[in-house]
């Protein structure tokens, strides 16, 4: 049986030509329906994580490569399959306010998918579904329905978003920085909800973030992107506790761990303009270990069963095929 | 704040410099207001253009102060006023030869004498240069012109031309030709493109001294020949300012009126009756041709009719034309538009002395009695329309074959905006589907005959009715779809009528047969209702007597010229003014 989702050598290039920007560079991975997981895609802004989400949702098309959903290229989905894909691949976005159409009450957000996907057969049933979903994310339907988005708190709004996704029983949920704009006190709550979704409803979650701490809390595996390429990937434990790639090390180093003995931010990330050498390691210009050999693109070197890094520091290790990236991602 | 004022005045200075950079200014003497005449008029001529043969030349913007004719005509005294010529006589009974004797004192402003050479040059130029206004007339009539001596010119015609002297060689109103200086224009290669310039030698009393878009300033020449020759006393007016009020399209009439009231302007373009009424009420020093009583104006040569294209249905039916005339209530027009003054008319020509005598003749009186051209009788109108096959439809409009009568009146807003709306309603009340149309191309539409009905003047007869009656000669009745120039919109065809006119053509107006034929033709005009005469045309010009008196009025016709300072005879009006006490 074809995997639920498969990225096959996907690249996305904006403005192909002289001023082109490679937003995503030859990425491959798979998610399996029978093994729901939480995969974190981490990276700074510009790393390509949002492009990844847009590609996955079918909002933009890949420049090279294919994205297969249940074995079919999502660009070629038609009719029923397309509806199914739409329904089964859902997202929760970063800004819990912007997703609401200010013209309508919050009900609109939940009613539209129910109507469009014929999830309920009558009004009463629709109301049931809405109540159910809201309750599932820890909200009291009576307090929520009939209100305008600006009358609710950020946490409430974000949970309505998750409820919206929940109504559709998706197979994949893309959570694009779902907690970054929510009060810290509510973050745990929302992350828990996501975890519940994965465990109880069997939803695979692609958790997009720049925040390694939350990733560490909820994800099973992680993929660190830098300028569209995978720098390091593997299990969260491996990657975050023992980062191997200089970039991941920098990232992890800059996390303010609640450990007073631990120094952070020891090494500055020096952003540089003339960074990308067309064919070399993308991190070359900022890398403290930059070597001559880095002027050609490093492959993925497998360090542990669940850890791989794209860096010549590990060139002695066995090289992993790009297509086999998913093999190092635990579920 | 101070900075701003400085900035403002600096920019004004700069702008004034730019604005004045294209103007004419000579050394200008200081002349006090009491010696200066202020006239409100429309200035459009390119600055520096004075040559009368320049294409697009007009005499109306002060040029008449520079250019003089062989002879003027005093319309209200019905008298010729010899000018550069001492005399002009037809020397053959059949009007085929004319001898002109010039005044020996006549001089151009550069001291050169006006001689027969200038006259011959002027006539030949008119004949040879296609763009000149009397080109066609000279080609039609002039056989040859010859300078007998320095002061005598003989003009030979190829056919009887009894009206040539008056229509072409005499300046009156806006017609006739001035004499131009041969010694200046001979040297010019393309006269129709020669501007002339401020210092072009001329024979008239005033020279231009300052000219920008706002005003033209003329100062009196000390050495004007006409004073020496005894034609006229030294004029009191030392300076004439033509001030640009933008003419009929520019500054509103009410504002010009206000400027006349406060004596900024001594005279201005003609105005509506009600406005003159209020000017006099505001400033009793202002007077008009008829003093402080209506109609406040003098008769122009331009009586207005509702013209019709008599080749276009339904105007090709004399009954329809007559029916329309019968719903025009001329008494109501006088009351509504002209404060009760008797302006409405039944004639296609103005009642100047010669023409008044004609209409007072028993023959015409009898015709008028019989045909009742001024009758207002809606019932008779309705009867005629029914006879012509029309029925009244639900909108109370006459209809035939599902079509109402397209009685849209074409006219000119600047001069017709008071009278035409009234006519429209009269026609509507009479069942004719009428509307106003003051389009810019009205005249062209009239000429092309695309529409049926036009409000327009005649501008033809001054002394005798021939010119007016000739407008309906079928010689000018071009077929529909072609253009009919020169006010010949009727396209009327009637061989009987043509025969009468052809018989009149070689006759002088004092010939009894001429008078007889004219009455006959007028009879056809009325019974056939070739057009519907509506109003006499009045020029109502305010004369402010605060600074200047002796304006031409009914009581004081002076040299008998009309009072328009912009007409060819305007020079005589201005030079006859007297300083107020």
């Amino acid at each position: 049986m074809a995997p639920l989702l498969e990225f096959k050598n996907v690249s996305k290039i904006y403005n192909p030509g002289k001023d082109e920007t490679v937003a995503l560079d030859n990425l491959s991975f798979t998610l399996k329906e029978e093994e729901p997981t939480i995969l974190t895609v981490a990276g700074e802004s510009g790393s390509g994580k949002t492009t990844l989400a847009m590609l996955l949702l079918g909002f933009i098309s890949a420049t090279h490569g294919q994205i297969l959903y249940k074995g079919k290229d999502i660009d070629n989905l038609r009719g029923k399959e397309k509806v199914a894909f739409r329904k089964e691949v859902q997202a929760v976005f970063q800004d819990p306010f912007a997703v609401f159409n200010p013209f309508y009450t919050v009900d609109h957000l939940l009613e539209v998918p129910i109507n469009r996907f014929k999830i309920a057969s009558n009004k009463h049933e629709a109301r049931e579904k809405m109540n159910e979903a809201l309750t599932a994310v820890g909200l009291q339907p009576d307090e929520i329905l009939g209100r305008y988005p600006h009358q609710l708190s950020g946490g409430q709004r974000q949970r309505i978003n998750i409820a919206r996704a929940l109504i559709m029983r998706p197979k994949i949920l893309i959570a694009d920085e779902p907690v970054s704009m929510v009060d810290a006190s509510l973050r745990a709550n929302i992350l828990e909800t996501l975890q519940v979704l994965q465990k109880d409803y069997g939803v695979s979650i692609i958790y997009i973030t720049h925040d390694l701490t939350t990733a560490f809390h909820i994800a099973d595996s992680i993929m660190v992107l830098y300028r569209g390429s995978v720098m390091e990937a593997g299990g969260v434990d491996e990657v975050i506790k023992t980062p191997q790639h200089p970039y991941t090390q920098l990232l992890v180093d800059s996390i303010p761990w609640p450990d007073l003995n631990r120094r952070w931010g020891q090494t500055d990330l020096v952003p540089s303009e003339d960074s990308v050498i067309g064919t070399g390691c993308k991190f070359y210009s900022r890398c403290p270990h930059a070597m001559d050999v880095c002027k050609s693109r490093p492959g993925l070197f497998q360090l542990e069963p669940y850890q791989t890094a794209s860096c010549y520091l590990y060139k002695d290790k066995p090289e992993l095929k790009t297509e086999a990236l998913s093999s190092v991602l635990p579920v | 704040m101070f900075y701003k004022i400085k900035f403002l005045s600096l920019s004004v200075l700069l702008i004034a410099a730019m604005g004045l950079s294209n103007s004419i200014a000579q050394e200008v003497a200081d002349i006090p207001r009491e010696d200066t005449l202020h006239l409100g008029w429309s200035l459009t001529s390119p600055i520096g253009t004075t040559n009368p043969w320049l294409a697009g030349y007009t005499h109306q913007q002060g040029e008449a102060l520079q250019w003089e004719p062989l002879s003027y005509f005093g319309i209200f005294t019905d008298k010729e006023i010899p000018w550069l010529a001492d005399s002009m006589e037809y020397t053959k009974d059949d009007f085929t030869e004319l001898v002109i004797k010039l005044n020996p004192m006549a001089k151009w402003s550069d001291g050169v004498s006006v001689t027969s050479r200038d006259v011959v040059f002027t006539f030949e130029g008119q004949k040879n240069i296609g763009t000149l206004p009397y080109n066609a007339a000279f080609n039609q009539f002039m056989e040859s012109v010859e300078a007998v001596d320095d002061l005598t010119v003989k003009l030979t015609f190829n056919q009887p031309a009894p009206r040539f002297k008056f229509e072409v060689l005499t300046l009156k109103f806006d017609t006739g030709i001035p004499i131009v200086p041969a010694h200046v224009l001979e040297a010019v290669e393309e006269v129709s493109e020669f501007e002339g310039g401020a210092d072009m030698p001329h024979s008239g009393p005033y020279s231009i001294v300052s000219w920008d878009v706002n005003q033209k300033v003329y100062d009196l020449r000390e050495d004007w020949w006409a004073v020496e020759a005894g034609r006229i006393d030294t004029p009191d007016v030392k300076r004439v300012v033509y001030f640009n009020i933008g003419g009929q399209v520019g500054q509103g009439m009410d504002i010009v009126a206000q400027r006349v009231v406060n004596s900024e302007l001594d005279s201005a373009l003609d105005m509506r009756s009600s406005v003159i009424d209020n000017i006099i009420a505001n400033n009793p020093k202002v007077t008009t041709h008829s003093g402080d009583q209506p109609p406040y104006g003098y008769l122009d040569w331009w009586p207005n009719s509702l013209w019709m294209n008599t080749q276009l249905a339904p105007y090709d039916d004399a009954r329809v034309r007559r029916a329309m005339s019968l719903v025009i209530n001329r008494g109501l027009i006088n009351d509504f538009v002209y404060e009760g003054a008797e302006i409405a008319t039944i004639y296609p020509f103005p009642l100047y002395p010669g023409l008044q005598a004609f209409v007072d003749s028993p023959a015409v009186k009898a015709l008028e009695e019989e045909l009742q051209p001024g009758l207002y009788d809606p019932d008779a109108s309705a009867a005629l329309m029914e006879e012509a096959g029309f029925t009244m439809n639900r909108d109370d409009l006459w209809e035939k074959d599902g079509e109402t009568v397209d009685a849209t009146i074409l006219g000119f807003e600047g001069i017709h905006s008071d009278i035409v709306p009234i006519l429209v309603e009269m026609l509507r009340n009479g069942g004719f589907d009428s509307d106003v149309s003051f389009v810019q191309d009205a005249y062209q539409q009239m000429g092309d005959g695309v529409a049926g009905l036009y409000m327009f003047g005649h501008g033809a007869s001054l002394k005798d009715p021939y010119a007016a009656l000739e407008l309906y000669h079928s010689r000018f009745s071009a077929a529909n779809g072609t253009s009919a120039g020169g006010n010949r919109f009727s396209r009327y065809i009637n061989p009987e009528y043509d025969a009468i006119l052809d018989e009149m053509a070689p006759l002088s107006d004092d010939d009894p047969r001429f008078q007889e034929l004219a009455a006959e033709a007028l009879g056809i005009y009325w019974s056939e209702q070739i057009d519907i005469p509506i109003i006499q045309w009045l020029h109502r010009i305010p004369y402010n007597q605060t600074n200047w008196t002796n304006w031409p009025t009914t009581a004081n016709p002076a040299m008998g010229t009309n009072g328009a300072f912009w007409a060819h005879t305007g020079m005589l009006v201005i030079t006859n003014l007297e300083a107020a006490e």
Partner: protein
Amino acid sequence: MSSVSLNQNLIKRPGRLVLLGRYLRRNPSLTIGLAIMLGLTIFTVYGLLTINPKDAYPLAVRPQQPPSWKYPLGTDFFGRDLYPAMVIGLWQTAIIGLFAGALGTIVGTVLGFLSAYFGGILDKTISTICQILIPIPAFLIHVIIAGAIDKRSVTILTMAFVVFMLAWMGPTLVIRAQVLTMKERQFVSVAKLSGMNSFGIIFREILPNLLPFIAAAFVNQVFQAVFASLYLSVVGLGPLREPLLGNTLWSAQSQAAFFNGWWWWPIGPTVALALILASLALINMGIDELANPRIRTSE
């Protein structure tokens, strides 16, 4: 948190009418503008039901009469009763304004939407044409168009059409800009995820949010149209026999009404025009507030 929700539960949500009333009280310009507009509408509608239209044309009544019980607004030089003339003039001016305004707004909205939503060559073409046409003073082109039309066929509607011809670019650009920002808003993405098609997104998600902008564009268009019709009358390019406000005003001017002491003649159409234009301006001002959600939310 719980106390807040409790509170929210206790407040009875007010009805729409009450909300509207409250809103109008907070937005005096909109209120005054609408009130003037309502007054003019009542005047016109009542007038149209009671007058004899014939009285609005010349020779109907005694000329040059000052206002009196018989002629509430006086009569003019031509013997028009100025009260019915004003009623019909308002009605005709309203037709021009509404027709040109509605047409301009509809075309502008449709083009703006097409341009922004579908992008590509269509967008390039439409927005380039708009940008090229915008600096050309519309009135001058009106003059050229109106001058070229055969005057006997000029009706109120032709006049409105002439005004409309150059009135669509403004709304097109405004709506285009709004749709461009709007379609990047996340609720559009979410609507897509919720299975909405383009049609639904345009009409159910984007359009409602543009209503204030469309309303503002419409009001602005009507304003421009009324003004343009006035100026076309002034330069003599309108249907002359009709008692359009601009025509009445200009014929008063060309008969030197002020100088002749017929002050009531130009005053009527002036006040009417001033009221129409001012109420439109005030409504426009009011809608500005409506169009700005930040201002709307902060009460």
